[in-house]
């Protein structure tokens, strides 16, 4: 099930390759050998419970965290070898949609979308304004250019964030929890947008989520992370038919199973009894 990812620079059609990623925070290992490939034009969904390391994986790939071990290639360039300048060149080829949209609150919606174009292209201001309208049209928000982020809803913020992420026509877009905090309809709209970008413009996507419905709807490949390791990696069908009990519990959303959230009754009683003994000894 865990397709091996070779420890070598990937061929042309693999836009992103992670091999044995390791990340530690204060000696605590949050990623322990995460590997996967993302083919050009494909949607990869990284899923897992809270604290499984999926957000950390994303932050490493977009250059916000440094690796402690393993190797990753983005557009054929090894990211741990890339200087800040080289990484910035890579950053112009991918976009990121943050969990809250991360719009700049001091700027209007239009200025937010225009910013990457103004900073990274030599386009005329009139052309930029036309492009801003086009990008906002793609996410269904024409006519909102002059509003401030504080004047629009959470779902709209996220769509503006997506318009900004695709402003420079990236080859790859990263999504951090695109449907977190959104109602089912808006969440479905975002899913549609991800699929649209893939089908109409051939944009590759890496989506971090724990929403199973949208994950199975949009994914070409899925990675299931559990305690910093890849527990399952494959197509949605392969994941759905996985015989791993942890994966099964997660995709069905069952409260009881191998994922330890609640301590068992016996362990709880034992610790409680021990605690009581201690108290009684002291008095």
């Amino acid at each position, binding site marked *: 099930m865990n397709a091996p990812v070779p420890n070598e620079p990937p061929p042309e059609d693999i836009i992103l390759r992670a091999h044995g990623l390791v990340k530690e925070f204060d000696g605590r290992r949050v990623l322990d050998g995460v590997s996967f490939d993302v083919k050009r034009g494909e949607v990869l969904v990284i899923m897992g419970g809270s604290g499984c390391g999926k957000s950390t994986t994303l932050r490493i790939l*977009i*250059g*916000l965290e440094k690796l402690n071990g393993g190797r990753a290639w983005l557009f054929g360039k090894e990211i741990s070898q890339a200087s800040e300048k080289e990484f*910035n*060149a890579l*950053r*112009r080829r991918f*976009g*990121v949609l*943050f*969990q*809250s949209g*991360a*719009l*700049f*609150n001091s700027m209007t919606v239009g200025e937010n979308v225009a*910013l*990457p174009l103004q*900073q*990274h292209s030599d386009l005329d201001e009139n052309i930029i304004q036309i492009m801003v309208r086009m990008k906002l049209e793609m996410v269904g928000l024409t006519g909102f250019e002059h509003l401030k982020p504080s004047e629009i809803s959470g779902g709209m913020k996220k769509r503006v964030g997506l318009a900004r992420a695709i402003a420079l026509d990236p080859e790859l877009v990263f999504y951090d929890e695109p449907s977190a905090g959104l109602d089912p309809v808006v969440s479905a709209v975002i899913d549609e947008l991800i699929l649209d970008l893939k089908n109409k413009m051939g944009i590759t996507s890496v989506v971090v989520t724990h929403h199973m419905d949208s994950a199975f709807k949009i994914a070409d490949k899925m990675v299931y992370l559990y305690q910093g390791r890849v527990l399952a990696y494959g197509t949605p069908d392969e994941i759905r038919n996985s015989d791993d009990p942890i994966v099964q519990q997660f995709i069905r959303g069952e409260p009881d199973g191998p994922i330890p959230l609640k301590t068992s009754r016996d362990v709880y009683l034992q610790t409680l009894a021990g605690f009581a003994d201690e108290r009684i000894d002291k008095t």
Partner: protein
Amino acid sequence: MVKTIELIGRIFLDVIREIGGVATLLVETCYFAFVAPFRGEFPDRKNFGKQLVEEGIKSIPIVALLSFTVGLILAMQTAYNLRKLGAESYMPPLVAIATVRELGPLIASIIISGRVGAAIAAELGTMVVAEEIDALRCMALHPTRFLIVPKVGALLIMLPCLAMLADAASIFGAYAFGASALQMSAAKFRQFAFEYMVARDLWSGLLKAAVFSLLISGIACYKGITVTGGAEGVGRATTQTVVHSIFAIILVDGIFTAIFYFIFP
């Protein structure tokens, strides 16, 4: 005992870490202000203009009002002491020189650390919490170039100007007292106030204001950009910015004054 030593050691390390962090940030700011433009990376000009207004122009009323009041108070206190010697007419030069050398820049800097320093730390801290700084990085826009250079640069220009304004308002405050209580004419006050003043009094004060501006913006930007822990962290960073920058201003002011007194009298 061990705990106390541990605590002192930790505070010492924190101080060193903060000084190092602020210094690194200011060096980085210098790079993006003076070196990077030659490599085609320009600081954000629109933002710079906005900061000039936010940090400088909008601080004018409060700096003028408070400096005027301090000038008034200083004149009264000076006159009270001079009256015992029958030398009340020496009030203008005493107040004017103390203001230009010391109080104008100091008052302006302390007001600005509360008004502008706190605002910078809160703004940057909120941007960290809302992932806006991460978003900037991901757009290949360095936060120092995009956010910090305009703030530090604008304050470096504006604080000496505000210090000059504070000088003027404070001396005017002293004149207001002199004219009403000591029956001094404007001509006599002006002649007397500036008779003993030399150019160095003025520029040593303005130089101090420039250095204080770097302390304020450096500490505020560092505290803002290193915020952790959500809204609570933003509040902590804002408070620490004001406390630390006022502390730093007074400490550095002491060093400067001693240098000007002993080494370049």
